[in-house]
């Protein structure tokens, strides 16, 4: 073998050393998810609590977008036909009213909750024992006219006082319109609805009353305030410092723009935490 041949062989040897290095540059990882973290277990069961919450706005009062200081004596919502779902795929309001689920728990009964009560933090509607474990990531309910009690005849009933520049107005507002709501996963400080075996979790229907009156702590051009009725249109209806009106009356006494705002508010009054719900008027 000549010198050139030897050099050729040496070169081939070196090349053979480099080629594996080049091929090892891209190496897919072969990790797999930790199966212990997967909580799905349809055999085991736990406790699911259904709550309603009007938040601090309704319990402690707040200033409307138009400067009225509001306090509430009563804020009754009447709800029924409550259903909690382990939806799959996870429900999103973009889907409309079609919801697919693996598990659905139906809550019997109609509940009348005073969300203005300081103890309603939140108001416990129902406790469901022995529900299949899993993630209850959707909830539906209907806001219905109360059959009896202080809010009889109304699905939403508010009483309280409004004060602005020394003017005090006592108000009583009754909304008889019934509304169906469907919401997805709770959006808030913590996840809700995750029932582990032997554990307890809760779901919450959250009512945002700042959507009705607006929030004086936010800019007047804030989307929240732009969509809120405020209190001034109601104050304009006061007689001797008293406003007493129901939905039918308001449809005749509010101007068309204000009434349209009120109607729209009823469709985005209810949330799941901060997550919006789908809504439609019923009955």
């Amino acid at each position, binding site marked *: 073998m000549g010198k050139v041949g030897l050099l050729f062989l040496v070169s081939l040897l070196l090349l053979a050393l480099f080629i594996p290095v080049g091929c090892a540059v891209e190496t897919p990882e072969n*990790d797999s998810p930790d199966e212990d973290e997967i909580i799905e277990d349809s055999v085991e069961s736990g406790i699911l609590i259904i709550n309603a919450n009007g938040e601090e706005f309704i319990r402690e009062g707040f200033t409307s977008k138009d400067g009225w200081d509001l306090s509430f004596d009563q804020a009754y919502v009447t709800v029924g036909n409550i259903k909690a779902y382990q939806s799959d795929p996870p429900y999103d309001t973009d889907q409309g009213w079609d919801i697919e689920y693996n598990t659905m728990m139906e809550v019997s009964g109609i509940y009348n909750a005073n969300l203005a009560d300081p103890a309603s933090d939140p108001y416990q509607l129902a406790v469901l024992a022995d529900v299949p474990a899993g993630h209850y990531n959707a909830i539906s309910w209907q806001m219905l006219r109360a059959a009896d009690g202080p809010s009889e005849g109304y699905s939403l009933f508010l009483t309280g006082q409004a004060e602005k520049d020394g003017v005090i107005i006592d108000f009583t507002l009754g909304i008889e319109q019934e509304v169906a709501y469907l919401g997805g996963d709770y959006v808030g400080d913590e996840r809700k609805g995750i029932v582990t075996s032997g554990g307890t979790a809760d779901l919450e229907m959250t009512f945002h009353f700042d959507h009705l009156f607006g929030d004086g702590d936010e800019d007047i051009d804030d989307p929240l305030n732009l969509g809120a009725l405020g209190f001034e249109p109601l104050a304009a209806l006061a007689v001797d410092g008293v406003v007493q009106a129901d939905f039918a009356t308001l449809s005749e006494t509010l101007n068309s723009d204000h009434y349209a705002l009120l109607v729209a508010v009823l469709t985005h009054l209810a949330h799941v935490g901060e997550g919006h719900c789908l809504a439609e008027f019923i009955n």
Partner: protein
Amino acid sequence: MLLNVQSAGCKKIILIMLLAYVLLFLNAGGVSAHGVELEFTERSTVEVTARYDSGDPMAGAQVAVFAPGSPAEPWLTGVCDSSGRFFFVPDPAIPGLWEVQVRLAGHGGLIRIELAEGNIEPSRSTGFSGLQILIMAAAVIWGFVGTALFYSRKRA
């Protein structure tokens, strides 16, 4: 005699190659105490944009990212930028349905992102393309060959 000269030349070549191997492996071992090793990894980035219904960006909104199979504890938390955008790189070892929750001043939403294993498969790279690596390898090899030829040349 000529044969002997050629054998001596071959011995030189082999010695040079051995020396080169030693140098090569010493370098590969990273014995320099002041050396710097830079690496990067290409991974798929998820960009989430959060806006109000009005179209205004949710600047400064709080973001919580939940990995598949762990819905209770955030895998990552952060804040949207001034355009309402938030970027994160999901762990490629956890394919499945990732959830991103965005909240600001009483407004919030949750979006789900299905990431298949193939979509987020990581790759390791030196930063050089395959062609660049081949050219560099060839240059190194022929450097050795040239050196060997120089020392094995016939002397006048």
